[in-house]
């Protein structure tokens, strides 16, 4: 994912308690309004890395609406409608705010961690189909 390159220079400053304004501006320039929303998600501890004894991992992000979305960061997928619309269909966004929040969490090395059983991880990966229907 090309946008990882833009994180390289942000990495150091994002580990500081407060992000310098010029880097916030850079984030907004590259990612648009998603940037602020994504940072907000990170601040509110809305990103959770779920893992099981198998070593398989998946991200779950609590959206602003209260719904949780499943994000596969390594292969660039989010179950939210904005991803389907802006990223996949229209192609005018690189990612949604949830995926950006996941990437930011990875760079800042901060997110909730949750250990579940292998079976539960399967349900998390599958669950998002039923979430779409509800």
């Amino acid at each position, binding site marked *: 994912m090309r946008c990882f390159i833009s994180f390289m220079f942000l990495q150091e400053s994002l580990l500081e308690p407060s992000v310098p304004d010029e880097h916030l501006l850079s984030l907004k320039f590259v990612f648009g309004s998603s940037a602020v929303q994504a940072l907000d998600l990170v601040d509110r501890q809305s990103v959770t890395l779920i893992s*099981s004894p*198998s*070593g*398989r991992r*998946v991200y779950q992000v609590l959206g602003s609406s209260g719904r949780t979305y499943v994000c*596969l960061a*390594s*292969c*660039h*997928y989010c*179950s939210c*409608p904005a*991803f*389907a619309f802006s990223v*996949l*269909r229209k192609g005018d966004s690189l990612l949604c705010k949830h995926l950006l929040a996941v990437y930011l969490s990875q760079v800042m090395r901060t997110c909730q961690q949750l250990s579940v059983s*292998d*079976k539960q*991880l*399967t349900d998390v*990966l*599958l669950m*998002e*189909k039923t979430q*779409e229907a509800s």
Partner: protein
Amino acid sequence: MAETLRRVLNSGGAAGPGEENTAEAEPPLLLLGGHGSGKTALLFAAALEAAGEGRGPVLFLTRRPLQSLPRRIGAALEPLRLQKIRFQYPPSTRELLRLLCSAHETRGPAPSLLLLDGLEEYLTEDPGSQETAYLAALLLDTAAHFSHRVGSGRGCGLIVALQTQEEGDSATAPQLALLQRYFPAQCWLQPDAPGPGQHCLRACLEPGGLGARAEWRVTFRQDGEMTVTPWPTQAGDTSLHKGSSSGGQP
């Protein structure tokens, strides 16, 4: 698995071991072609190749059991290699998703190659882009998980075969463009003018910027023997893959 396919295609040609064993993971590959273009045969050849490497079992997913083992390359089928190929037949999209989502639950040696034949059969219920992307992402994630379990080395490869429509049929074009975003490496198979008693294909491998584009001629004889030769390069040779695809290289 562009490199494995390259090795399969190279090994059928002139003498020579073909590519070196690379230590890095190989990119997932989308194998594309019309009906009867030899996708299943090539997938099976890749399965045998990987099974012979002794790195782990091969997982071959397809909707319906293969009616007969596809025509094979060169040397006789080795029973030992066949034993290392595990076939599974998820009958529906939902079952395929369940299989992929629960792939981490099974213990034992992780597969060194994950193959899916007939992706189009799992996309027939007119899925939206989200469902298609979800399936593609899960395939990638499952292969990535197997790679993680394999540990060092080339990890687990992924080749997915998708039947493409005839030129002019734009029904699958958006899905194809979407899948190409998740699978940067592609290999196109197109029928070539047959010789007497032969069925010929042109295989064009586009590794997605990670290697050189290469082409081969794949020939199936009446007796089922499959031979592969590098496609002769000639000045003015037109590119084959622009025909049926609306998505090109980024």
